[in-house]
């Protein structure tokens, strides 16, 4: 009897998680895809017009704001990638110079504990043209300094990138530091004995060894970029105009401001496609790397 229960109980215990997965993830994704083919507006309609099922997508790609969103997504991804590069440099320096490691990590990482809304509000204040950093630079005598990035559609995105880097830098540094520490210390001594110069050591030995960590960082970064909504809202609220919209912002705007479920669903589906297109290769490469690494260890 005890034995039989021991077989049934674990399966029963998994029912809630299974339900959540099937309903909240699979069901919801399916629902969103279905909705994107309908003409739902404020309330969901389940009927699909077979002749015009793609009309939401047609509208979407004719929408200038959506094109801007996609462009911003790429700009944001490329710009935020700087956080990985800087994170690696900082981690390498902290790792080499062991003095004050705890102190530096604490300072670099604290922004991560702060919400993106707060981050955005703080940086918006720094970017304030009349009272913020720009004014400070002008008073120092650098009168041509332009730090009023958020007001200009051409530079507003860079403001958001700067704030995102500030927020995420310590996180990538912490991941890189963990990666660097897992490298066998003998490599350092061996390289020293062989007289390998430090730049060469990093470029030719350390970075290839950290490929896995870099991939992990890249995956996490792209996930953060695709989801970026809070920071945009807090810093520019999408403006000036629609110049800092991102797909995530577009989707939520289509749902809450335009109350158009069909349209928002179509945008969400494209977000899912982008996510899958970015992740599946990255995840597969990472899994392959991990397996190869395990094979090497064994």
């Amino acid at each position, binding site marked *: 009897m005890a034995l039989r229960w021991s077989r049934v109980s674990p399966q029963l215990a998994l029912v809630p*998680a299974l339900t959540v997965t099937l309903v*909240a993830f699979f069901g919801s994704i399916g629902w969103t895809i279905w909705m994107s083919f309908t003409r739902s507006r404020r309330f969901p309609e389940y009927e699909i017009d077979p002749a015009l099922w793609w009309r939401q997508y047609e509208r979407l790609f004719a929408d200038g704001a959506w094109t801007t969103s996609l462009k911003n997504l790429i700009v944001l991804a490329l710009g935020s990638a700087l956080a990985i590069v800087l994170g690696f440099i900082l981690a390498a*320096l902290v790792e080499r110079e062991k003095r004050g490691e705890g102190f530096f990590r604490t300072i670099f990482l604290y922004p991560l504990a702060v919400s993106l809304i707060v981050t955005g*509000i703080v940086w918006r204040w720094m970017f304030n043209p009349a009272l913020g950093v720009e004014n*400070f630079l002008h008073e120092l005598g650098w009168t041509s300094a332009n730090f009023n990035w958020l007001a200009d559609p051409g530079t507003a995105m860079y403001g958001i990138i700067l704030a995102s880097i500030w927020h995420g830098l310590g996180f990538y540094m912490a991941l890189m530091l963990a990666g660097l520490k897992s490298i066998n210390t003998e490599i350092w001594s061996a390289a020293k004995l062989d007289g390998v110069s430090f730049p060469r050591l990093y470029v030719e030995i350390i970075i290839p060894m950290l490929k896995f960590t870099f991939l992990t960082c890249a995956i996490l970064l792209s996930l953060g970029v695709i989801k970026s909504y809070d920071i945009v809202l807090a810093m520019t609220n999408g403006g000036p105009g629609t110049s800092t919209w991102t797909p995530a912002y577009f989707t939520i705007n289509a749902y809450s401001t335009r109350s158009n479920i069909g349209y928002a669903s179509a945008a969400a589906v494209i977000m899912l496609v982008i996510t899958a297109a970015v992740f599946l290769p990255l995840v597969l490469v990472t899994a392959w790397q991990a397996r190869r690494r395990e094979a090497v260890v064994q």
Partner: protein
Amino acid sequence: MSALAYEASAPTLRTAARTYPRRKRRVRGSSIAIVVFLTMCAAFMSIPLYVVIVTSFKTMDQIAIGEIFSLPTSWTLEPWWKAWAEVCAGMTCEGVRHGFLISLEILFPSLVLSIALSSVTGYALALWNVRWANSFLFVLFLCAFVPFQIIMIPLVVLVANLGLFGTIWAIALIHAVLAMPLLTLIFRNFYKDVPQEIINAAIMDSGSFWKIFVEIILPMSGNIMIVVLILMITSVWNDFLVGLTFGGIGTQPMTVILANTVITQRGEVHYNVDMAAALLTAIPPLVVYFGLGKFFVQGITAGAIKG
């Protein structure tokens, strides 16, 4: 395939315990240069915090002069009081105080729901012979990558049909659902290192699934519980979108109140009050961070996917 989530957490957990023999080193030019450079970077990272703190203690008269980096000439607590109890968010003018309480009310059910769900699932997947465990783990791994916006609208419809929309329970439930894939992976990776012999012996001892969980597994989960708690506390407290979409009037968390206060305000802008409100919102997770730094690092690297 859940390697990613695991691998991300493994190095930190492992190296935390390892100590390095300290090499004797002379102070060289290059190492001074490195420290100087790192200190400059640290200064850049600290500037925003410094600016927010000094701004929140300044009077509006001093802010209007425009020296953003200067210390307050006369320190005032008024902005803090205004932010806490008087500032207007939309129609109501009762400060961020109300949001603070709501955030606390959201936090506890979210923690209980998500940890109960994920730890039991992780335990069942790690230590009991469930035939489809590996496939399910892979599915959970994929689910951890799904951006919330994609499943947001159907969840709103679902929660509305359950009659929960606009309640604290709706927000807590959604937090538990969203955190489930990642937390389950974390718990499973922790529990899978429990020796199978212990479980077999416990089954022989006529221990049931739940009895083993409560009497053997839970008492040894202290470390992972702290890590997960910190991860969840910061992510639930800092969440904005779930609170915005699922909270009704009167059940919006602090971040939403803050955003309403600062971003959509009309008329004269009180920057000092804004900054005090922002700091009030940031203080709880910052306290967790500075108080439990080591666990925080483990938490965020373990919860890397959540980012």
